[in-house]
């Protein structure tokens, strides 16, 4: 199947969204879900094609003289495409409950931007070359900007400025020159198994600089010091945060890094040139520092945002280590973290809708009012920490295992330390909810259930189940990842 088809459902649904508008909400959201299911089907058929070894390519449009826009499917992209399209459906289901429960304004604009962002994510997932990836990357930035500034207040606009400023700034300031450099050095921007830079005559030092340009240029991956946009973007409505943090934006970032390391540099080139040596500490620092900062945050979404930063750097670490095992783990972690983190964000939003609480210190005893939500939060947290029986343990295992090829156990210890930190900042939240007494209750009174709307609960249930199922049945994913051509 032509990967261009993946762009069709998200784009085709936009007229319907505009047509139905605020007046026919059910039709509007129904049409999005139908489009999402179509997209899922398309991705699924691409998946079966890729598994069967049938080449999946689109035609090309020459954007620049020698470089064109083109889509094609390879295993890594299929993983990402499947993930994003599945979570799009789930997020839409969730936002039906959330946006209505929260009486958000401008919902139509919200859904339109959402759809555009998703189309761009598909473009990024199936990008056949760096140029296409860059284009999709920028479209995602721009189309999610209105989502961040959704509330429209001064705070939201300021956050939007930070968001746009950092993402656009780095992508234009670092990523674009890096791409141009690759174009100049290798003469091609295509993603080729084994990379194109091995014989491009770039020296060791220059290779490190180039890799650094990519790493810092892709600020969506949240590496410090270009991580500020992520917590800033927390002013957005929760489904957006969920989308930003679990699916579209950050995952595009790390996915791009993985893809560039695999198909532009080639994992061997990265290791042989030692290009990543100077960057590994940065990623490791981000892993730890973000965890520590997360401790200090009382706002739930802010804490989750820093947790995301830390987790993304797991994947960056995996990419920089550039071994087959670690990069496989990185790809797997994209999925595992997506499921875990989206669950957490959904729960945070559910708490907001049902109880109007956003500060952790005020969440004492809410587990009795929202047992399902907080139970799901616990499982999501376990997955983020990387403990069985959740999918997070597999990806952590692979990343840590792959990191040993660098000849030091330093990176393993970073990951392990981060695991402990994760426990310390994530688990107190459900504990507080379940174990501390509810200050709003008089002694002897029992709390009544005050769960979020059903649509939210269904979405949460889906992703939570996903966390566990990914532990039990990672086979389809790992098989797909096994098809990646490394050399």
């Amino acid at each position: 199947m032509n990967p261009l088809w993946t762009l069709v459902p998200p784009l085709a649904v936009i007229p319907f969204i505009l047509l139905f508008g605020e007046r026919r909400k059910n039709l509007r959201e129904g049409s999005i879900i139908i489009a999402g299911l179509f997209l899922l089907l398309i991705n699924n058929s691409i998946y079966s094609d890729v598994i069967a070894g049938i080449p999946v390519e689109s035609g090309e449009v020459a954007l620049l003289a020698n470089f064109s826009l083109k889509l094609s499917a390879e295993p890594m992209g299929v993983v990402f495409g499947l993930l994003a399209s599945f979570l799009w459906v789930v997020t839409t289901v969730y936002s039906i409950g959330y946006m209505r429960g929260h009486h958000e304004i401008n919902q139509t604009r919200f859904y339109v931007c959402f759809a555009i962002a998703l189309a761009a994510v598909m473009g990024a997932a199936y990008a056949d070359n760096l140029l296409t990836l860059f284009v999709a990357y920028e479209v995602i930035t721009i189309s999610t900007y209105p989502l961040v500034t959704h509330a429209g207040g001064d705070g939201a606009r300021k956050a939007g400025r930070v968001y746009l400023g950092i993402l656009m700034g780095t992508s234009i300031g670092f990523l674009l020159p890096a791409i141009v450099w690759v174009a100049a050095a290798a003469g091609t921007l295509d993603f080729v198994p084994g990379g194109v830079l091995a014989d491009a005559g770039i020296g060791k030092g220059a290779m490190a600089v180039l890799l650094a340009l990519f790493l810092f240029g892709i600020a969506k991956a949240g590496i410090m010091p270009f991580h500020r946009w992520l917590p800033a973007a927390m002013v957005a409505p929760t489904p957006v945060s969920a989308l930003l943090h679990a699916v579209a934006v950050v995952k595009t970032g790390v996915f791009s890094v993985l893809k560039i390391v695999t198909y532009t540099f080639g994992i061997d080139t990265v290791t042989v040139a030692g290009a990543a040596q100077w960057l590994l500490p940065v990623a490791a620092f981000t892993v730890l520092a973000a965890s520590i900062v997360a401790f200090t945050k009382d706002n739930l979404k802010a804490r989750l945002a820093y947790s995301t930063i830390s987790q993304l750097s797991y994947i960056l670490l995996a990419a920089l280590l550039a071994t087959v095992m670690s990069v496989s783990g990185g790809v797997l972690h994209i999925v595992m973290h997506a499921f875990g983190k989206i669950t957490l964000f959904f729960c945070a939003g559910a708490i907001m809708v049902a109880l109007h609480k956003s500060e952790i210190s005020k969440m004492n005893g809410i587990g009795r009012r929202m047992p399902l939500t907080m139970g799901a939060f616990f499982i999501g947290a376990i997955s983020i920490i990387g403990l069985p029986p959740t999918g997070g343990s597999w990806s952590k295992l692979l990343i840590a295992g792959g990191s040993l090829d660098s000849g030091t156990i330093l990176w393993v210890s970073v990951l392990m330390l981060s695991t402990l930190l994760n426990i310390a900042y994530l688990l107190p939240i459900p504990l507080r909810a379940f174990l501390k007494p509810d200050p709003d209750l008089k002694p002897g009174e029992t709390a009544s259930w005050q769960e979020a709307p059903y649509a939210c609960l269904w979405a949460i249930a889906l992703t939570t189940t996903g966390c566990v199922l990914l532990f039990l049945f990672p086979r389809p994913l790992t098989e797909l990842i096994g098809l990646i051509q490394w050399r």
Partner: protein
Amino acid sequence: MMNLMAPPFLYLIAALICPFLPSRWRALLLLGIPVFALMVMLAYPAGEHVVWSVVGFDLTFMRVDKLSTIFGIIFSIAALLSGLYAWHVRDTVQQVATLAYAGAAIGGVFAGDLISLFLWWEGTAVASVFLIWARRTPAATATGMRYLLIQVLSGVLLLAGLLVHYHDTGSIAFEHLGLVSTGTFLIFLSFGIKCAFPLLHNWLADAYPAATITGTVVLSAFTTKMAVYALARGYAGTEVLIYIGAVMALFPIILAVVEDDLQRVLAYSLNSQLGFMVVGVGIGSDMSISGSAAHAFCSVLYQGLLFMSVGAVVYRTGTSRASRLGGLYRTMPVTMLCCLVGAASISAVPLFSGFVSKSLILDASGYNGNYLVWLALLAASVGTVVHTSIKVPFTLFFSHDSGKRPAEAPVHMRLAMIIAAFLCVIIGVFPGLLYSLLPFSVDYHPYTFDHVLVQFQLLLFAALAFVVLKKIGLYPRTVASTMLDVDVIYRKWIPARLPLVARRVADLNASARQSALGLLGNGYGVIERLTRPGAPLARGWSVASMMFVVIVLMCAVLVLNLL
């Protein structure tokens, strides 16, 4: 489908469906599953079963041999007894946690490779912490958090170690490892934490008293014994274990003697008993390994029995503080008798279970020729008498009368205790039953005249010493207090200094940010002064100044070109 019938998975499935059952069925499930799983377990032939290929590894979930089977059996018995003991509990959280925890522990001993071992390893951590949190007090929450962090630390060390090991050898098989490389060292450390090696031990004394009454009983059975199993599997014959075990058997004694909380006393004594097993593993002979396995088997029973009896007292009085209890024999005689059986077992009185298992280790260490260790173990046996066999029953049931007249423990608790006590005696009287289960066949006869004689000498003289010390007033009275342990480092000292460090870092960060912002602000000011509307660069220049620029530039061009 057959795979789901493996014992650990049976427990997990039970844990999964447990929340959806009516309350009585949940409690019955806790009784039924251990029996059923035990039958399934015994039906497995020796060998490797239930292989699962995942993320590029082949995981073996049922590696059945004699070493794993004996642990599997005792874990099943422990699960059954604690299920019976906890019959009154209708708290879903505890019930699910108990099932999952027992399942994970049983999974751990049947794990045939390091990765599945790791999964169960973390599983026991996650499941067991709920038994502490289920107490639902702020202090229990905090304690549970500490416990979980340490347990997961052990898990991540195992993960790191197994990865390093895999990287070195390309194998994840869980066979004999030995202390040969970084990887195996990390794994060793991980086992050491769960096994409560000296200086890594505090979680045990910290967490066990903080669990619920029934939770403590459950906790006492699994985690540490699983670690002993893992050591026996991976590090049998590692010499350093002998010394670690010796120290481990000795030092908790001193702490336990003056401890006021009887559950903590039992936790220390459990720690000391682990020391015996570790020595046995360290010696590594067939006899000593068998001794360790046997001792673990017996220890689960008598330690569980002791925890049960103290738990019964807590259930009726609300405290386990020695300073507040005493003279309870009047109204809780069954509990008292069971406690005495437990005490007799732990101090290895002949005809009780401890005697037949501890002797194996002691003799093995004697034959090994490491006399100092042998002596240490002997001393530790005496120590057991000091802090457990005498102190616990004496302060609880006799001693001075606290005036408390609690009712006898509920019948299901009594039943659980009586069964445990019965098993202790049965093993003590018919050691052949236990020996037939051991990983290596041992030809050992505990009941020789010599052996019985020296044991009585040892024990009765210890009792005599107690009497004498009591008479002359040297025996310490129990008072409500806290004894410092090494955990003071991370519970008091570091937290006390942390805010200062954090403030320093925060200040540094703030000042760095301030100066960076200041610099930016200055730069911005300069730019704005040059470029805002009406500023020199942005003004509509007058004709004169435009011409001036033209002329200057023209001159520059001409000069440059003509030179």
